[in-house]
């Protein structure tokens, strides 16, 4: 039984470079971390064995998997998407596609595993056949950097979030934009510093399909100096209405990702000047529990078992935490 309030760090996987993001494969055998030295590092959970996947010419910004757990796709800041075998002893890319102009920041695989969506700094979303990398179509409508993607669990829609707080809902069948959710609270333009800042860092839909969340930051008093606070917006899916703004007042950080647990509560990973935290929210705006991590959290993922959480850290570590009471130490 999941118990967020009992969360503890169970395992540290250490490496030679800070991490950007992390993901479990759908079967829960491995955890993958994308690092600042362009590598993706894989650890086998049962043995701790490590493999380094190095083929991108820049940092990897996102990882996605086929639902059967056989294939991983990586998105690079080198304009390229790569397909990899998840479980090979020494994985090498199966396929490389120059997919966009500029950074590719987000990937998503459709629930039936047939389609891959990619998006990034060129403001376009591209759909590809997962099986062979062939292109399906390009969706245009964002006029700035796209930060996040997800397929609706029904497979009918694709959602995309950009730097300026637009969350677009697209028909997968036709490529038409259906509607836009207003998440502009996650965007700021600081005239003094002359910079756009913020963005929809992640998207998530509740298990019952009734709520959509968009995560990022707000109160950006000093973007260049990292003075801002985390914010997760919770919308009603049917009406698009904003229901709740989840905040943690006074915590200088960004909500890198928010994702629903199958049991319905919301998990948010944040990192910044306040350090790294996992926050757990119910329907109320404030978290019902906050777990402080040893250092700043840049991303997280939930294991298929619903108990383990992987977090990617600046401190050159991927950590596994468990939302369950720590087992008693064996008797001596």
């Amino acid at each position, binding site marked *: 039984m999941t118990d967020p309030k009992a969360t503890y760090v169970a395992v540290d996987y250490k490496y030679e470079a800070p991490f950007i993001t992390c993901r479990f494969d759908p079967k829960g055998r491995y955890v993958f971390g994308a690092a*600042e030295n362009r590598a993706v590092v894989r650890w086998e959970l049962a043995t701790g064995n490590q493999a380094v996947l190095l083929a991108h010419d*820049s*940092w990897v910004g996102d990882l996605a998997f086929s639902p059967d757990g056989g294939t991983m796709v990586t998105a690079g800041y*080198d304009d390229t998407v790569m397909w990899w075998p998840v479980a090979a002893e020494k994985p090498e890319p199966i396929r490389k596609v120059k997919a966009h102009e500029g950074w590719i920041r987000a990937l998503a695989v459709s629930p039936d595993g047939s389609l891959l969506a990619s998006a990034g700094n060129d403001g376009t979303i591209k759909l590809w056949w997962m099986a062979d990398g062939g292109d399906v179509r390009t969706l245009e409508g964002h006029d700035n950097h796209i930060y996040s993607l997800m397929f609706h669990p029904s497979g009918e829609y694709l959602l995309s979030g950009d730097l300026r707080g637009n969350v677009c809902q697209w028909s997968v069948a036709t490529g038409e934009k259906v509607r836009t959710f207003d998440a502009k609270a996650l965007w700021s333009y600081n005239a003094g510093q002359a910079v756009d800042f913020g963005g929809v860092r992640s998207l998530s839909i509740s298990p019952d399909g009734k709520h959509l969340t968009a995560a990022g930051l707000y109160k950006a008093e000093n973007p*260049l*100096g*990292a003075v801002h606070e985390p914010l997760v917006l919770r919308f009603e899916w049917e009406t698009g209405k904003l229901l709740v703004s989840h905040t943690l007042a006074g915590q200088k950080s960004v909500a890198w990702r928010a994702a629903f647990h199958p049991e319905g509560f919301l998990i948010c990973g944040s990192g910044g000047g306040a350090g790294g935290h996992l926050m757990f929210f119910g329907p109320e705006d404030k978290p019902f529990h906050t777990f402080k991590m040893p250092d700043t959290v840049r991303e997280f993922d939930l294991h298929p078992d619903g108990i383990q959480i992987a977090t990617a850290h*600046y401190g050159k570590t991927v950590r596994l935490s468990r939302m369950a009471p720590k087992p008693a130490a064996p008797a001596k």
Partner: protein
Amino acid sequence: MACGHEEHLIARRNFMGGLALMTGMAGLAPTALAGRLKANSKRMIVIDMHGGLSQLESWDPKPGTDTGGPFRAIPTSVTGIHISELLPKTAKQMHHLSLLRSLNTKNDDHGKGTYMMATGRRQTPAGDYPEIGAVVSKAIDGNDRALPGHIKIRPSGGGGRSADSAYLGPKFASISLGEGKAPENTACPADLTEESSKHREEFRRALNDTFLERRRTAETDAYTQSYEQAQEFVKQRDIFDIAKEPEKEQKRYGNHDFGRHCLLARRLIEKGITFVQVRHSNYDTHNENFNFHIEQLGEFDGPFATLVADLSERGLLESTLIVVLSEFGRTPKINQYYGRDHWGKAWSICLGGAGIARGTVVGKTNKNGTEVTDREADAGHVFHTYLRALGLKSTGNFQLGGRKMPMADPAFEPIKELLA
């Protein structure tokens, strides 16, 4: 000679002060009226990348290292020179430019760094040194020009003179164009006809001439020069108006402040202004350095490359020194916020035009940019290099009130490898 009667003194001050206020040009040093600039006079443009441009995201990339970050290096129009992929258009102009990759100014403070790069000297309690714009304007223009020769274009703020000329006097202090607009009080009142203006001017001259027959002093000369320079400013106010440039030109430079300011800089240089500085904000990227450099250099690259190409095509590059500088660089180490912090230990600037060698890299840093390994240089060396590139004797002196004031810090010398 002034009669010294207090009422006359007050009346004269109020009279001249009122005129000066109207023209916004109070307090200039004495000088003769201007002639025209010589056709081959040198000029200088400085692009101030305010806040601390990252050398690793611009002139000295280190891809694939622990400090390199995510960006790749791209070839330029000069074989063997690579710069960051964030500057694709500038890369095509590299044959007009050179890089100094070995600056070590040993300073991580914004204010001190700005001062150092502007004056070639460290701040001291003893007094201020003039900035490069004032030095260049005095050295090239002398006392013989109608329009001010030292202009700074800023994204915001008002107009008016600053105090950056130190002991060279207010005549060589910069005039700031806030948002790239001409200073206030330089437009003729709408209800003043040309004929009225002509009559006013004749009356003013007549009064002045009568006054000056017996009361001419250095102070009256200063007021006269102020007023007449201001008049020239008002007459030539259109040179500050880029709306006078063809729409096609405005589009080429881009529909944003930096683009407009680069076009204005070109226009001012073409009209004979000796020194123009354009500021681009904001590079102080302690947080999300890479996202912000994508945005800021994305805005910088096109207009800067266009400016360099235009100066070349118009035959102005041989006489115009261009410098892209900052107050320091940024740390090779990437912090927890994906940011880089202040770093004066091993950083870079870009120069081009005038007497600068073309397509050259001077100086080196180590594999991950943490140290200079070859041809270490200070702001003092760079200052000398500017002057030499403008055909000036950087070891020369200004004669001010009987005193010799060195144009540049005598403890340094030009970087000869950067000179053509």
